[in-house]
C-alpha cells in the first residue's frame, strides 16, 4: 500500500473464538517479539471481537507491547468482511512494517482479502521468518531489514525465501505449531487501545445462520509419540494397523498428505508443511517416502523410526532407525513385541 513506512512495528492478528485465543496467535506473538527485537520496534496484537473481558491482557502476557482492540457486536463471530474492514483500515492508518496471521481457516480467509485491499505482498504458510537485507539486482538499491518469508514450495522440493521490498506491510501466514510458543509472562506490561469500528451495509451482506464446531479429537502437537502412515500404507484396512500401533504406544495417529488425499484418514491428522508441525519424543513413519513437505513438519522429532519397502526412500536419510520391510508385516511384529513386554 505504501512505499515507505516509518513504523517498524510487528503486528499479529489475534485469532479468537468465543474468547479463546488460537494457539497459533500465541506462537506468532513469540516470533513477533524476536523479530521486533531485531528491528528495535514493538509488537502489537490486533484483537477483534465483542465483550472479550480481559483477553487483551492475555495478549500482552504472551508478548505484545500494545493491543489494538476492536470491540463491536458485529465482530462477535468471525465474518470476512467486517474483520477485513477493521484490519484494512487500521493497517492503512498505522502502517506497520510486518503483519503476521495464523494460517488457519480464519486466517487464510482474512489475510488475502486484507492484502488485496492494502496492496501488500502476502506469503502463505511460512515455516520460518527472519530479518535480513536485500540488494535489488535491477537498480542496485539496498533494502535493509526486510522480512525473509521462508517456505517450502513445489511439493516441498525447494525452500524459497520470499521478500516484499516495497509494498508494505510485509504479510505472512504461518501454520499452527511451526513457531514455538513462550510461557506467558504475567508481569508483562503493555497498553490497550480500544477501537470503535463502524460498518456500512456492504460489510454486513453475509449472515451466519448456524455454526457447529467440535473439539479436535486430535492433539498431534502435544503428543510425545506419533505413529504416522503415508501413501505406502496402501489401503484403509492397512491404516488400521497404524492406528493400532499408535494405540498400543499410547500415542497419536499422524499421516502424510498422500494418506489424507487417498482418504485413509482426515486432514486433522496431517503432519507437514500444510498440516501440523510436530516435535515428539518418538515419531514412527510407516509407508511415508519423506517428501520435504512432510519432513518439514517432523524432522525435529527426538527419535525417528522409518518403515519402508524402498531402501532409497528419502525418509531413511533422517531416520534414526530404519526398517526396510513391509509395514503390514513390521507393524504387527511391533505390536506383538510391545504386548509381550507389557505382560
Amino acid at each position, binding site marked *: 500500500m505504501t512505499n515507505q513506512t516509518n513504523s517498524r512495528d510487528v503486528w499479529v492478528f489475534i485469532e479468537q473464538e468465543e474468547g479463546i485465543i488460537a494457539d497459533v496467535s500465541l506462537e506468532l506473538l513469540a516470533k513477533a517479539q524476536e523479530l521486533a527485537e531485531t528491528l528495535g520496534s514493538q509488537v502489537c496484537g490486533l484483537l477483534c471481537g465483542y465483550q472479550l473481558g480481559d483477553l487483551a491482557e492475555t495478549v500482552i502476557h504472551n508478548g505484545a507491547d500494545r493491543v489494538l482492540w476492536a470491540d463491536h457486536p458485529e465482530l462477535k463471530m468471525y465474518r*470476512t468482511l467486517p474483520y*477485513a474492514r477493521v484490519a484494512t483500515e487500521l493497517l492503512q492508518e498505522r502502517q506497520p512494517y510486518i503483519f503476521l496471521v495464523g494460517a*488457519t*481457516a480464519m486466517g*487464510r*480467509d482474512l*489475510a*488475502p*482479502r486484507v*492484502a*488485496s485491499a492494502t496492496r*501488500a*505482498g502476502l506469503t*502463505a504458510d511460512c515455516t520460518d521468518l527472519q530479518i535480513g537485507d*536485500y540488494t535489488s539486482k535491477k537498480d542496485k538499491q539496498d533494502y535493509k531489514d526486510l522480512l525473509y518469508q521462508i517456505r517450502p*514450495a*513445489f*511439493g*516441498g*522440493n*525447494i*525452500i*524459497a*525465501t*520470499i*521478500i*516484499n521490498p516495497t509494498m508494505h506491510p510485509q504479510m505472512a501466514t504461518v501454520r499452527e505449531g511451526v513457531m514455538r510458543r513462550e510461557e506467558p509472562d504475567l508481569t508483562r506490561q503493555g497498553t490497550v487501545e480500544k477501537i470503535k469500528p463502524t460498518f456500512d451495509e*456492504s460489510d454486513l*451482506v*453475509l*449472515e*451466519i*445462520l*448456524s*455454526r*457447529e*464446531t*467440535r*473439539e479436535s479429537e486430535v492433539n498431534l502437537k502435544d503428543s510425545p*509419540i506419533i505413529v504416522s502412515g503415508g501413501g505406502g500404507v496402501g489401503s484403509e484396512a492397512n491404516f488400521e494397523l497404524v492406528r493400532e500401533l499408535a494405540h498400543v*504406544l499410547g500415542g497419536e495417529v499422524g499421516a502424510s498428505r498422500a494418506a489424507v488425499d487417498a482418504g485413509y484418514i482426515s486432514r*486433522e491428522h496431517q503432519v507437514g508443511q*500444510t498440516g501440523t508441525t510436530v516435535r515428539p519424543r*518418538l515419531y514412527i513413519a510407516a509407508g511415508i517416502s519423506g517428501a520435504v513437505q512432510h519432513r518439514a513438519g517432523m524432522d525435529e522429532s527426538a527419535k525417528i523410526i522409518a518403515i519402508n519397502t524402498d531402501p532409497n526412500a*528419502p525418509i*531413511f*536419510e*533422517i*531416520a*534414526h532407525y*530404519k*526398517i526396510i*520391510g513391509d509395514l503390514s508385516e*513390521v507393524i504387527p*511384529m*511391533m505390536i506383538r*513385541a*510391545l504386548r*509381550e*513386554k507389557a505382560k
Partner: protein
Amino acid sequence: MSSARTYNSIVLVKQVPDTKNITGDVMKDDGTVNRSALPAVFNPEDLNALEMALQVKEQYGGQVTVMTMGPPQAAEVLRESLYRGADQVILISDRKFAGADTLATSYTLTRAVEKLGDYDFIFCGRQAIDGDTAQVGPQTAEKLGIPQITYAETLVNLEGDEIVVERALPLGKELVKCSLPCLLTVVTTANQPRPASARKRIQYKLAATPLEYQSLLKKWPEFETQETLDAYLEARDMKLPLWSAADLDADEDKLGLGGSPTKVYKVNFVVLETTESKEVPADQEGIAALLEELIQEYIVG
C-alpha cells in the same frame, strides 16, 4: 420453483504442474518456475468448482464461463472444461502476465471478470496444488468488491439474489446466507466432478486458441498457414477466445512480475541432513530388540 431467474457463473481455473512428479530442473534462475518441465494437470479442486457451477446451470439455467490465466498450453484445461459442459471458455495469456504473484494474478483475473461482466457467481477451487496459498480467490473477490465464501461445500439454497451455503471448516460446519454476486472457493468434498463427456470430447477436440496454431500446424501440415487454420476453426466455432493485457485494458504496472509485491529472493534445493541411522532387521527378533532399546531410553513406556 416460481422464479424464472437464471444464474451466470464464471469459473476461475488453473493448470498446475503435477507436484507429485517433480524433476530437478523446474526452477529458473529468477526463482520462478519452468512449467514446461513438468506434466500439467487441471487443478483438482477447480474441477469441484466447475462441477458446482454446472449443477447450478442444470438446475436454474444460465451460462457457465471458464477462464484461466496461464501460458498457451493452459488451453488444455479450457478444452477439458468444454468436455464437461462449460458454455464458454477464455484464455487470459500474455507475456506481460509472467511471474505474477497472487496479487498480480488476482488483478488480472479481476480485469477479465469485469470485461465479461454479467455474472452472479464466481467459483474457484479452494487452493491450487502448486502453491497451496488459497489467496487468489479472496483477493479477486476483494478487488471486485463482492463477498467471498471460502471452503464452500454445499449450495443449500438459491432463491432470487440470495444463497445459503454450507462451509466445511476444519472442525465443523458453518451455514451462511449471502447476497449475490458472490465468490465461492470450493472444497474437494463438495461433489464428485463429472468425467469428460465422450461426445463433447469429439466435438471440441479441435478447439484451440491462436497461441496454439503454430504447434497445430506441425500436427496438421495440410492447413499450411495459420490463416487457413484460423478460418477453419472460426467457421466451426472452435476458435477459443484469447484475451491479452491490451484486451483487459489493464494498468501494466499491476501485471506480472513488476506488479507483484512479493519477489523470490532465493531458492534452495533441499539438502537432506543425514542422520546417523541404525538399520533394524525386519524380523521379530530385531524389532523386539529395538523396542527394548527404546524402553531402556525411556522413549517408550
